[in-house]
């Protein structure tokens, strides 16, 4: 995807975010107008800044959209998004990054806090390094044990803080 195609795609996402912020801001204004807040004037409402920001974002991302659409054409822009999606599935770098992120997400969202720190950290490190083929398996296990040991020593013993 070239930079104009990227601009086209991201501007669509940004327009959606802008509309969400704008509608959310209006919702805040309407909610704050009711008791117990009873702030009926927009200029002092907590919804003021979100509305301004949403409107500004809408204008700027529309400019970005129009600029990129002018250069690549509307149809080509949408075709590029579909084409990029198909290409991304086949791209080995993107696949590595996505699977790497999934391993990180499993560690950060699911494992952490459920098991002792040393166990979660060790599982994560071994899993991701094995996936990335960072080294031989026994070396990965040794490195992971050393790293987790060093972190526990530094933080739990050295700084006296409890790890997740």
């Amino acid at each position: 995807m070239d930079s104009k195609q990227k601009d086209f795609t991201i501007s669509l996402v940004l327009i959606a975010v802008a509309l969400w912020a704008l509608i959310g801001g209006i919702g805040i204004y309407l909610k704050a107008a009711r008791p117990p807040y009873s702030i009926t004037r927009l200029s002092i409402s907590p919804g003021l800044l979100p509305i301004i920001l949403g409107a500004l974002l809408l204008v700027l991302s529309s400019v970005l959209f129009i600029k990129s659409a002018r250069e690549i054409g509307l149809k080509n822009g949408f075709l590029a998004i579909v084409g990029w999606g198909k290409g991304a599935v086949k791209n080995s770098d993107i696949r590595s990054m996505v699977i790497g992120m999934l391993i990180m997400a499993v560690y950060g969202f699911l494992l952490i806090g459920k098991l002792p720190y040393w166990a979660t950290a060790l599982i994560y490190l071994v899993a991701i390094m094995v996936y990335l083929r960072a080294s031989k398996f026994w070396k990965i296990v040794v490195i992971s044990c050393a790293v987790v040991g060093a972190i526990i020593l530094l933080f739990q013993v050295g700084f006296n803080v409890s790890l997740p």
Partner: protein
Amino acid sequence: MAFTYLGQAVATVFAPLNILVLMLSVGSGLVMGMLPGLSATMAIALLTGLTYNFPTQTALIALLGIYVGSISGGCQSAILLNIPGTPASAATALDGHPMARRGEGGFAISLATTASMFGTLLSVIFVLTLTPFLTKLALKFASWEFFLLSIFGIMICGALTAQGNALKGWIAGILGLLVSVIGLDTVDTFARFSFGSVNMMSGIQLIPVMIGLFGFPEIVRSFKKEENPELVPLSKFDIRKNFRTILKHWVAVIRSAFIGVGVGIIPGVGEDTGGWLSYWASKSTSKDPESFGTGNELGVISAETGNNACIGGAIIPVLSLAVPGSAPAAVLLAAFLMHGYRPGPLLMTESPSFVYNVSVYLFASSFMMWLLAMIIARGTVRILRIEKKILMPVVFLLCVVGSYLINYNFFDVKVMFVFGLIGLALSATNFPAAPFLLGVILGPMADSNLRRGLRLSDGSFLPMFKRPISVFFLIIILGMILAQTGVLKKLKRGKK
């Protein structure tokens, strides 16, 4: 009184624990700065969480030490690998790497390290002299001025960091501002975009956002299949020759320090710009500009003095206005707040010794950086041989620990992850992360001051156009919009 504060700060630095912390933090900074992908911002953000339980002064020493170390450490990989360890050292690679290729790698590193030390030392003079002046000026600021200052900061940062496309910088800034409105608002304690979550109501913590924005994308990018670049061996170096060379180019050192401090003061514009501008100034004033890019020692000296002088420059607005001059300084601001300091116009009244402490700690950090870099250069360059696929998963572990330790809350780990994905999307689509971060930091200042100003004026925007400092900011903001959107150019063409 100033000398008493300076004396106390010197005594604090020389406490055995603090010397040890200084050594460790500067050393860690050098290593983190040297490793491509680990930026100064990330280094400070990680350390901020870890210093939570430190005594305040020790924490300050650690944070400033890692800042100085990481900005300076970037030159080693720039010279030996032709890959800048931090964006700040990008200009150093232009002449540093050709020097290393012709067998002067050691000399180039020693020259860069010494220039870095002088850059930081000279910038400290500006911290000591300009901060009290700016603080006095900031006392004249009221709600409208603070609101416009924060908008100006985000806009200029967006314009200067977006590589010719200010629109993207401004969009990134607005996105950051939108993130800052999440949680209870500071005026009416109304919950905005919180979706009933108690964690969201307390707002988005800065440190996880910073770790995610700057650290996560680098970690994920390291998962690509790339071959390790060739490492040029380190040659011997002579310290006396190194100082003689620096003295020979003293005009360039002073000029680069001035440029670095000036760039540092501009909100959000960081050390990389300082390095590039100083390099460009030396090249354009040189009698032999063609030699730049082929291994000219002046290129290395200028770039490194300029980027390190930015450190002091970026700290000046943090202390006097609570507006960060660069992305690492933004993290530093968050760290100051976490340790109970309130930078801004009242700083000289509430904590008069703080400016002197920061100056002395910066001074000590730059000396320690020089000493460590010279002693351990041979050992540390071996670190550059570590496989990224081993190093980066370990860095993610530290990111998780750093985010968690702020509040001992798993929610912050999730926030770090989510903002990591946002950071990845921003960098993939060429949106700068610095204005986004500045938006998150300055958002509460912009929001509360805008609404306070409007409440005091009974909902009228008119006072904004009646106050001289406000009008000054409005003119600059308008000028920036006209210049960046090409309207000024069109007007000039129309006149011709």
